[in-house]
């Protein structure tokens, strides 16, 4: 269903109005803080906060464009996201020159194919393209070069990048191809997922900065605290529950799903932080000012999108 209607539906207008208002409040708070805070550490924190808010405006603007222009543009934007995430992942994950053909196939064959399958509603192949076909083809392309040094590690690195950056993230736009009886606003499901997962990130950060004392995993991710997780996580879940009216879920179902999204997102942040540290890096890249790289923002999405997709697919699709 290629739809190119450029009208903004009233629900969508309300939702984006809400997000807009929220960011306006955040920007005002950031501005006031930048005038008030004088301690050295405080200034750095506020500067980082303001950079994050600025990047948020940009991301929301991109999202608004996607929602207005429909499925095609949304799919292309997520494909680009996967492109940048995979690029970041492979850039700091050492492979060898002999992996070039496999890398080329990953970027130029499997990313477009995976997102084309979403666009063309081919759900069965979408589900197995990367876990089966890429999994088998990519090491074959590498082995043809005849280099066995670190072969298992190199193949695993590329497959991990594909799974996280392409397969997992593509489950967010794949929400558009779910056939839910009596419900056709699948864009709102995508809005629900992204809003809950990103608000959870922001609120965990804010609660962590304000009340954070007890670290969840000091060696893996020193910034994650129990206070941040519980305060930010429950707030995000509550906002998700309050958004039940845009979803096919009952309020309690929306609350449970939002909580699941929060927990999966937290798990994604934790696991990718460990991957990052095992590579000796702090941020995945420098693409987004104040946010590190694209993968620093998408780590939670890469875990929560497939979990949310499959729960909805199992319980709500006939």
């Amino acid at each position, binding site marked *: 269903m290629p739809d190119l209607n450029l009208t903004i539906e009233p629900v969508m207008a309300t939702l984006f109005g809400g997000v807009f208002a929220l960011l306006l409040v955040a920007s005002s708070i950031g501005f006031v803080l930048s005038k008030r805070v004088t301690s050295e550490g405080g200034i750095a924190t506020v500067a980082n906060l303001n950079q994050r808010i600025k990047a948020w405006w940009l991301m929301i603007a991109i999202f608004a464009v996607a929602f207005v222009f429909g499925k095609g543009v949304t799919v292309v934007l997520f494909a680009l996201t996967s492109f940048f995430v*995979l690029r*970041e992942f492979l*850039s*700091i994950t050492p492979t060898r*020159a002999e992996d070039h053909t496999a890398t080329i196939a990953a970027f130029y064959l499997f990313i477009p194919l995976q997102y084309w399958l979403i666009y063309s509603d081919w759900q069965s192949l979408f589900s197995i393209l990367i876990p089966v076909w890429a999994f088998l083809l990519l090491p074959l392309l590498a082995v043809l070069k005849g280099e066995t040094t670190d072969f298992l590690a190199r193949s695993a690195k590329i497959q991990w990048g594909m799974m996280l950056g392409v397969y997992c993230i593509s489950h967010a736009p794949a929400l558009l191809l779910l056939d839910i009886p009596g419900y056709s606003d699948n864009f709102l499901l995508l809005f629900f997922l992204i809003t809950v997962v990103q608000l959870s990130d922001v609120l965990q950060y804010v609660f962590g900065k304000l009340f954070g004392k007890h670290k969840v995993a000091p060696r893996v991710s020193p910034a994650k605290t129990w206070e941040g997780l519980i305060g930010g996580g429950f707030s995000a879940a509550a906002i998700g529950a309050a958004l039940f009216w845009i979803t096919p879920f009952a309020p309690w179902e929306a609350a449970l799903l939002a909580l699941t999204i929060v927990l999966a997102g937290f798990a994604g942040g934790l696991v990718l932080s460990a991957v990052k540290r095992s*590579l000796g*890096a702090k941020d995945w*890249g420098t693409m987004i000012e104040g946010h590190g790289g694209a993968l620093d923002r998408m780590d939670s999405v890469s875990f929560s999108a497939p979990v949310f997709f499959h729960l909805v697919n199992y319980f709500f699709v006939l």
Partner: protein
Amino acid sequence: MIAKLVGEALFAAARFLVGGQARWRGCEPATTQRIYFANHASHMDTIIMCGALPGYLRTTTHPVAAADYWGSGPVQRFVALKVLNAVLVERGGAKDPLAPLREVLEQGESLIIFPEGTRRAESLPGAFKAGLYHLAKDFPEAELVPVYLTNLARAYPKGAILPAPISSAAHFGAPIQLEDSEDKAAFLARAQASIIALSGEELPGENA
């Protein structure tokens, strides 16, 4: 005019695909005469090196490029000579291959050279050929700036048709000089080590 537009398009495409930001670690961009010497892994190296320099240095900084590749067709020739301001050299020819390089240096302009003479599949540079030593000896006033190019062996290795989108960066180190008592082998080994040292300073995550 066309050359300038092609250049901007080329540098933009290279930035989108393989990044290639400059990291000035041991020196700052300057108009003083310099010989930048870098490790060599791909045909993109020349484009990345030119793109990493600020625009005002590009017209007076000439990459040295192999004539058998960059002079092989009208497109390559146009890009090499008009866009990148390259100096083409014949490899393995009978003539003195350094003659066109000396000409550039005699005019007070700068060079980008790849002293290994050929592309390697490894991320660290191999043994240097003698060219850098002869130039250093004949032009002692030129600053010799080591440059470490990251990831290009993976992004666009020898024999590949398409570059892969793996981010690279150009790390510019502190200039070195030929010492009075230093012989050829010792100098070339030290020059090679100065690039390897830059690879050691490189932190994962900073090359994106």
